[in-house]
Each structure stands twice: as C-alpha cells, then as structure tokens.
C-alpha cells in the first residue's frame, strides 16, 4: 500500500500548512506586537502581552481548563468504554444502528442542549413543573458548580468517545479472544490483556477528540458554570471579542504549544510508537 498512497497525504500537508500553520504564524507575530485588530500598519513591537500570561486569573483559567479537560476525558473514557463495550458485546443484529441511535442526541444543536441541561440543573424547570403538577416535588440545584460543568462536558463529548472506542473494538479478531481463553485467561483478564490493548487506538483518538475541545471550549463553562467558572477558552474568547487580537493570539499560541508539545513528547517517548498518533 505504501508506495501507492503516500501521495495522498501531500495535499493534506499543504492544506494544513495553509489553513492551520499560516494563521498560527500570524498569531505568533500578533502576540509580539500591539496593533488594532488585524491592522499591521500601526503595529509596534511589544512584550507587554506576556505580562498578562502570569496574572492569576489567566493561570487559574489555564489550570481550570486542564483540570476539567482531564476529568472529563477520564470520565468519558470510563463511561464511554462501558457503553461501547456493552454494545459490542450485545446480541443486537445491527450494533452500529443501536450505537448511532444512542448518540442521536448529539445531532441537535449543542447550545440548545447545554441550555436544556442547565435548565434541568436549576431548581425550577419544565420537568420539575410537570412533576410537581403530578404531585412529585424533586429538584436539583447544581448549575454554576464545577460538577455541572463536568457533566456538561461529558454529556456533550461522550458520543465522540463511544464512537471511537466502538469502532476500534469492532474489528478485533475473534480468534485472538479464543486464544486468550485457551491460554487460561479468565474473561476479565482476557479483557485487560487482549481486548483493551487492542482498542487503545480508539481510546487515544477518542481522547484527543474529547480533551482538545474541552481544553479550548467556552460555551459549556460559561453557561453551566453560570459565568463563575473561568476556563482558558473563555479568556481567549473575551480578548478576541474585545478585539485584543494580540493577547488573544498570545494565549492561543501558548496553549497550542503547551498541549501539542506535550503530545509530541509523549509520542516521541512512546516506545512502541503505536499507542499515540
């Protein structure tokens, strides 16, 4: 396969360089200057922007992002794996259909879903209203708490994890499972020693799809955190909205470098070279 399709990757290199790297370079430049919007004619070189990097709110926002993204990703892995595995092991005739139906909700607008979720997390909402009309009085009051944000992140991004893991599980050669059983591994051990390692690629790509947007998103913390929980995505968004492209770019570039750098390092020291990327 190698020699025939290598050229297929070239357009993507070009595409990514044009659409991902050039903006990145522009932003890198923006972070060293002071100008208005994207008007470089009045740009002056400055390192002032870097001062904001260390203000407590920025640092806290970054740590928050990291914290929430890690928690959400880990939870998504656990829950997502269980769900994907349950479908994989189920006796449905068309498992893929079952899974797509399961993740159907993600095809309605994310903002609407988050709003709806926020509503339910508050004491008065349409469901409590209906329930109270039926004489049941229950309510939840977690909107604005970290828990709410995490639940929101999970609810939004877990389908990505389920899909990724399921796809990875789907093609595991059944004879390998038999071989493991044959060698005396119990079902549990078989899972950990054969199925799980063979599905790590799905976990990794699922994690990337969950972790990265969690790191940089702002709508979920803003709505479900009721504005009290500040993630780095919010900060970037604010600065861009205020048209401080310099500071916004700086933050974006710094985050990009930190996270991609971390991924790069992990992949570099990954002995097998197989688990990541």
């Amino acid at each position: 396969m190698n020699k025939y399709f290598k050229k297929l990757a070239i357009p993507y290199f070009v595409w990514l360089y044009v659409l991902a790297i050039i903006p990145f370079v522009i932003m890198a430049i923006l972070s060293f200057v002071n100008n208005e919007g994207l008007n470089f004619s009045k740009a002056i070189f400055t390192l002032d922007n870097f001062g904001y990097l260390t203000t407590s709110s920025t640092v806290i926002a970054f740590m928050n992002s990291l914290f929430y993204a890690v928690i959400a990703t880990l939870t998504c892995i656990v829950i997502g794996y269980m769900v994907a595995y349950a479908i994989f092991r189920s006796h449905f005739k068309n498992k893929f259909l079952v899974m797509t139906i399961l993740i159907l909700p993600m095809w309605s607008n994310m903002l609407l879903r988050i709003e709806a979720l926020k509503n339910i997390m508050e004491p008065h909402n349409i469901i409590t209203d209906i329930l109270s009309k039926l004489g049941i009085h229950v309510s939840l009051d977690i909107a604005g708490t970290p828990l709410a944000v995490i639940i929101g992140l999970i609810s939004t991004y877990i389908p990505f994890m389920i899909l990724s893991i399921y796809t990875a599980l789907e093609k595991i050669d059944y004879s390998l499972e038999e071989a493991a059983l044959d060698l005396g591994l119990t079902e549990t051990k078989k899972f950990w020693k054969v199925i799980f390692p063979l599905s790590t690629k799905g976990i990794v790509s699922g994690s990337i799809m969950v972790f990265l947007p969690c790191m940089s998103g702002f709508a979920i913390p803003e709505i479900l955190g009721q504005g009290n929980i500040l993630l780095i995505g919010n900060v970037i968004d604010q600065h861009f909205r205020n048209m401080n492209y310099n500071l916004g770019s700086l933050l974006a570039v710094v985050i990009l470098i930190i996270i991609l750098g971390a991924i790069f390092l992990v992949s570099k020291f990954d002995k097998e070279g197989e688990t990541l990327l």
Partner: protein
Amino acid sequence: MIKQYPGYEQYEVANIEDYGYKEHRLTKKIFKVFRAIVIIFAVFLMYIPIFTIFLQSINSSTITSEFGQITFKWYANIFDKGSLLTAIRNTVFISIWATLISTVLGTLFAIGISTLERKAKRHIMLLNNIPLLNADIVSGIGLMLIFSSLIHIFPYFFGWRTMLLAHIFFTLPYVVLSVLPKLRELDPNLFEASLDLGVKPYPSLYKVIIPAIKAGIFSGMILAFTMSFDDFVISYYTTGNGFDNLSIWIYSSMGRKSLSPSVYAFSTLVTILFFILLIITNLLRGRKQHHENH
C-alpha cells in the same frame, strides 16, 4: 445452580472451582449492576437534554420553566419565520456537503497518512490536532484571514463557499482520527492480493480497503456531520454576504431576545428525522443483504 444432563447422571458436572478458578458471582453481579447504572447514566446524560427540548417544543408557554398545554403550533411556526427557514436550509446545505467532502477527503488523507513513516506521520498528526485544539474563535479568525486574501479576486467569495471550506477544515481531523486506527489493523495482504489479481491501486482501494475500514469512515462521517451541523463561531467568522446558518441564528437570537420555541420544535424534528432516516437506511440495507444471500 448446576445444569443437569439427562442421560448422563452418572457423571459429575465439572465445576469451575475444581480448576483453580473462582467464580466471582458476587463481584460479577455487582459489576453488572454498576455497569448498568453507568450505561443508564450515560444514556440519561445524552437524552435528557433532547427530552427537555422536546417538552419545550410542545409546550404552549414560551416560558421555559412552566408547562402550559400540549401544542404543536411551534412546529407550524417554523415555516412562518422566513429567516429561520433560510438558516435551516443553509445549515443543511453546508453540513451535508461538508460531511460528504470531508469524509471522502479525510478517508483518502488518512490512507495517505497511514503509509507515511513514523516521523512524517507524527508531524502531520500534530498538525491534524491543531484544528481540534484551537479555540474556535482562533480558527475562525485565522480562516477569515486566509480567505480574505482572495477577496480582491472574488468579491463575493465570502458566503457559502468560505463557510463550506471552513467546515471541511474543522471536520477533516475528525474523519482522519476515526479512520486511522482502522487502517492500522488492516491485513496488508488484502490490498496486495487485489493488486495481484490485476486490479489497479485505486479500484483496489475502493473495492478492498474501503469495505474493510468502513466502520471508521462511518463514525468519522457521523462526527463530521455533528461538528458541522453545530458550529457557530467558525461559521460566523467565515461567512458573509448574508449566508447565515442555524447556529448563528440561534446565538444571535439569544443575545437580545428569547428564542422562539420553534427552534426547539425544529431541533426535535431533526432528531426524529434522523431517527427515521437511520431506521430506513438500515431496513434498506438489510433487504439488500437479504437479496444478495438468495
């Protein structure tokens, strides 16, 4: 409970404990219950928002915390609001095309990537992560910058063209990430066998590789569609000349006024539509397979 074998009563039935294994009945049961809870929780998490949206769509009251009566007028209203309808049309147009294009391209790119050496692969996969990691607003402005360099040549360039390009841009990584792991598990002999039988590389790709990785392509497609259907910020920055999609409509309408419940109605309709679509395609496929077997 040990199973009995009529006719063979004289033989003892083997017990797993005789072979050095323990039957962890209780732990297994506890785990099963735990797993059931987790799964129910996950389903609950995913479905409760759309259930709420559904309730709001049949709620006669516009207030989101009170349920008046059941009504379907919001469904009818969708088609009254010209701007909403246009936004919906635009959204469907963009997301379908973006999904199709990025699924095809993403699959091809992933195939290309899978043949690269480790170093080049790492390189491109890092790049591939950029659109995922960048805050949407950063991607949006970046794309806008690039696109606007063309505006002198094509004054009306901004609009569906730019939005489509942008959507392809941020959905591609999802397709690539979904397809790549499948390519890894591929038996290399399959492709060789096809070449060997005289089929050219690209037909072979289509006839042998694609069927083998179709689960990955499909999940990539689903993800691409989701992302495209939902996007606000990038769409916002990359569109122009009055071409707005549903997310822009929703965001902008939330800013100064309350959302019309028609949006909820539309959302519910979409969910139901997709559900029906899924079932139908599945039935059709089932029938086709049935056909083939006879």
